[in-house]
């Protein structure tokens, strides 16, 4: 069965844009609701509790109930807050997460814009969202938020570089920045061909979307709630939404870049995409349920001393292969890449452990 959508579907250019935009927004929003539900239920399972199970079957309607509750809350703006920024920041944070979705192919042809600089676009837009979070941190005039905002910027600057370098490996391997080309090149998912790049990208994405172990920006045990301490009502809801739509986009990016996006047998592409995306999020939840939080200097050290050299090395071996052995058979290249990655990661982990022992003592 051919599930692909022809590029000129359903005919008119503008009509197509509008329909796909609506589909994308619906996809992100429904995924956010499912992510919230999953997060609460899965974390509850990990912690041997039940989680929300009253609103709807299996508590599926909990997110709706929370939304209704949050809409009825008083909307407080602190007296000393920067009013304009305080209002604008949640929107600045939220909109870019939707914008990233524009270049992600949910299905063969179901892509709002197949930019030929897709990777660059993603790297650029994902930084804007962090600025929104930073602004929401400083606008509220709260010291906890301020510390959270500073951490957010530090984290953004540090982890953006390894993330982009990991993507550069993909770009070199398939010779294009367009996401549809990258997906096309993944008859074998890139997680097998570039496992090192995958690990780097995964860690960087965790930091970008502020998930454990990099949830320093919120750090509820240190900063009460970090950047959104002063927010309430609908503005808080928007920040909450940002957090989860970032998680959706993060999972979607990992799916699109490394797990073959919509490619898969039998089932329609969008279903494959959704399944892979949820699997990635499940992994993120698993980390959240078990890992402690890193300290800010440790997080920086991981980015600059750990991930940056690793991503350079990844770029180096990928370029080497692309230039000198472009037609390497898969049965050689996949095991070779995996073995190299495992060895390098173990060596690097040992190095980082030494680092930790010398820096803490």
């Amino acid at each position, binding site marked *: 069965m051919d599930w692909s959508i022809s590029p000129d579907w359903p005919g008119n250019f503008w009509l197509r844009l509008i329909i796909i935009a609506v589909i994308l927004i619906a996809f992100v929003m429904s995924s956010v609701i499912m992510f919230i539900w999953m997060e609460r239920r899965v*974390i509850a399972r*990990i*912690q*041997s*509790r039940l989680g929300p199970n009253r609103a709807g079957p299996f508590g599926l309607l909990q997110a709706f109930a929370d939304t209704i509750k949050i809409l009825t809350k008083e909307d407080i703006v602190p007296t000393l807050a920067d009013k304009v920024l305080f209002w604008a920041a949640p929107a600045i944070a939220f909109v870019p997460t939707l914008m990233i979705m524009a270049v992600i192919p949910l299905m063969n042809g179901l892509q709002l814009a197949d930019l030929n600089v897709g990777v660059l676009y993603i790297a650029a837009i994902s930084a804007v969202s962090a600025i929104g979070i930073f602004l929401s941190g400083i606008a509220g005039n709260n*010291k*906890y938020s301020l*510390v959270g905002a*500073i951490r957010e910027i530090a984290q953004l600057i540090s982890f953006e570089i390894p993330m982009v370098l990991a993507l550069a490996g993909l770009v070199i391997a398939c010779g294009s920045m367009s996401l549809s080309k990258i997906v096309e090149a993944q008859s074998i998912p890139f997680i097998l061909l570039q496992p090192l790049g995958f690990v780097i990208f995964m860690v960087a994405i965790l930091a970008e979307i502020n998930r*454990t*172990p990099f*949830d*320093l920006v919120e*750090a*509820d*045990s*240190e900063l*009460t709630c970090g950047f959104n301490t002063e927010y309430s009502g609908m503005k808080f809801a928007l920040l909450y939404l940002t957090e989860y739509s970032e998680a959706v986009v993060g999972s979607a990016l990992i799916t699109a870049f490394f797990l073959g996006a919509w490619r898969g047998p039998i089932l329609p592409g969008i279903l494959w995409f959704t399944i892979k995306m949820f699997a990635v999020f499940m992994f993120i939840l698993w980390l*959240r*349920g*078990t*890992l*402690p*939080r*890193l*300290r*800010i*200097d*440790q997080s920086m050290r991981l980015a600059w001393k750990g991930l940056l050299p690793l991503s350079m090395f990844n770029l180096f071996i990928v370029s080497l292969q692309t230039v000198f052995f472009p037609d390497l058979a898969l049965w050689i290249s996949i095991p070779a890449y995996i073995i190299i990655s495992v060895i390098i990661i173990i060596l690097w*982990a040992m190095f980082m*452990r030494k680092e*930790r*022992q010398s820096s*803490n*003592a």
Partner: protein
Amino acid sequence: MALPTEPFILNIGPLHPSTHGVFRMRVTLDGEIIQDVEPVFGYLHRGLEKLCEKYTYKQNIPLTDRLDYVSAINNNWPYVMAVEQLGGIVVPQRAEYLRVIMGELQRIASHLLAVGSLMNDMGIFYTAFMYMFREREKIIDLLEMVSGQRLLYNYMRFGGVSMDIPTEFLPALARFLKVMPGFLDEYDSMLTGNEILLSRTKGIGVMSSEMAINASASGPMLRGSGVKWDLRKDAAYSVYDKFEFDIPIGQNGDCYDRYRVRMEEMRQSLRIIHQAVEQMPAGKEKLPVPLRLRPAKGEVYTQIEAPRGTLGCYLVSDGTEKPYRCHFRAPALINLTVLRNLLIGQKLADAIIIFGSIDISMGEVDR
């Protein structure tokens, strides 16, 4: 180019997720680095010691429960011992063993809470906390079986304990003793080797043994710094001299050692309970004591090894039926005095962990 910077003051608490009650730290921060700390407490002050002078000796027992509400049974103990020594009251052997069993169960419960909330401070989103609460719940069920209550047990009496154990207690305790080591292994496998946990706790909040002694720290704080001092061995009270157990100590005195000491102490407590159940004689759980107790004139100081350290009770009697003065040496308060020395120069995130590893209970600090 160096930008001009200035430190800013951050109030952590009194209402904050990781101040374990209502404690407040007025922290002067330079970026993330702590320059100065001013601990502020007293928000939970209830005048317990003064209240003790108003009530009769027996009425004071429930008040002592409220000192350190996470280990209520251990708080009854020094007070009851003090009154017994003043009044020359004999405690039957069975009661002593019951006290030891309940005290050690309470110690495990308290350490579970301490380690669980330390992990929470570290950012494991409630997983370790919920796991440890699962086992704490089992202990609370056992104590409820014995005393009828779940948090403030009001268990000890002069000359014994409030009531003997029901028949189903010992089988339930045996079941608990059988499963608990497995759960402790589970925590170890989840936490102890975790690289992030190691990097967050090793070498953080180092307290040298000299500093610990000078600050008269006690309990896991002291033993984590490598000082082998445990009142259960060094000044054995009750029937602790009849049991065989080790005193775990740390080497570096950092947060990791304090965590390890607590984990290890739980295993040792299980050992003690095992032996106590085996050795426990039959007999009365309580000897009759006059209702209007009037101990002889005099003063006495008793101390026990509570989960948080040396818990002492200084009692002065003027021969009436109310104590003249009752003072408690609260280990949490005295352990807290090193907080400022430990925090200066550390990062904000470490401050929370160091504070968590001291394991205070505000009811005891503020009294």
